[in-house]
């Protein structure tokens, strides 16, 4: 469900431009309001929807699974650290959800990559990704599953 902007509510502050991981939220060259320039490249992460201080960004459902008349809106409460969702089905049913933004204090537990050691050539050619296995806490190697434990039909 890609996002779109209500032009009357947007004030062009740029929070969505800043947060969009796909770099598709831009400022319109005519109206100086935010615009999703490439909805089909939207990851649907809703970062912009949550970051918007004016609730000017909404999600548009694809017609095949979310036909006309439904709506999804989100409210971000920074003080309480919560995200509230309201889903309204086209038959009028409403569902409200509330989730934590994060359970950890903001700004902590951010990996300090600059302080890590520079990877060697061996590391670069390894199957493991950067900081693995320590980063994933799998010092004893990647977990393995015996073939017998696989479900029938997935042997290879």
């Amino acid at each position: 469900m890609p996002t779109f902007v209500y032009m009357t509510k947007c004030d062009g502050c740029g929070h969505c431009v800043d947060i969009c991981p796909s770099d598709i939220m831009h400022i319109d060259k005519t109206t100086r309001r935010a615009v999703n320039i490439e909805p089909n490249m939207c990851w649907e992460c809703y970062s912009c929807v949550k970051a918007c201080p004016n609730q000017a960004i909404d999600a548009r459902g694809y017609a095949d699974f979310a036909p006309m008349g439904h709506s999804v809106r989100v409210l971000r409460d920074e003080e309480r650290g919560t995200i509230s969702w309201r889903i309204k089905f086209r038959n009028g049913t409403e569902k409200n959800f509330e989730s934590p933004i994060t359970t950890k204090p903001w700004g902590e537990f951010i990996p300090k990559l600059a302080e890590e050691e520079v990877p060697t050539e061996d590391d670069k050619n390894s199957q493991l990704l950067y900081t693995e296995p320590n980063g994933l806490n799998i010092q004893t190697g990647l977990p393995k599953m015996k073939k017998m434990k696989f479900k029938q039909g997935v042997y290879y």
Partner: protein
Amino acid sequence: MLFTNPFAVLSVSVPSIAMQLFVITMILLVAIGTMMDIVHKKNVKYFFENAKKAKKQAKRTLETGEKASILIKTIGSDILTTAELGVGKRRVAHLLGMYGTIIFWISSAIMIFGYTSSNSNTPSYLPFLWHFGSLMTCIGGYWFWFFLRVDVAAEAHPWYRLIQADLFVLSLVITSTLALIWSFLQFYHIDGWDTLFLALFGLSNLVLFGGVYWSKFAHIFYKPGAAIQKNLAEADESRDNLPLPSNKPKQFGLGIKRESPKHY
């Protein structure tokens, strides 16, 4: 310079009636530009359709007194202090530009219509307000132009990149800047240059008021309407389809202090 009415000095060479006709023309240009904008963008039509939809979703009917109180609160908070912009630099810059422009326009109109005849004596506070207003607009406008524009602050474009969206803010600050320069040149009798800057001041006014259809000028009229509608929707519980605000205090961690969008 600060206490001299530049229009009274100008009335020696340009008749008052010409200046007054210029102001009336500018007002007409704004009215025509806004009407064209409304017809072209259909935003007012959308606004009323949306308001009708919100009314249908309303869970309670608002009394007239309640509506009036919301209106007063909206004027005090969203319109007069632009609460929409939150707390921060953008709001301060906007308020400087907004009030600077209002003071500049009103004092201009009063001086042109009231104090440009040969026997009139301009009260000293009017020219002071005129200069003060244009200075406020310059501070707010240039602050926004060089440091706060999203294109510059977040999208890493250079400050000198011009797009159509800049037409309003740029013509506004240039008009105020040219007004100050013209007043300075006129006061110190720097002949020739003062005429040139007067012409440029007139031209920048034409661009500002004549460019309403192409610029963001009309947001002056739209934004208050949108703010009133937003607060009415909050009160009648249609809430623009938004969920109820969270009622779980301090349950989900320490909360988040928003970072300003400037990561480049």
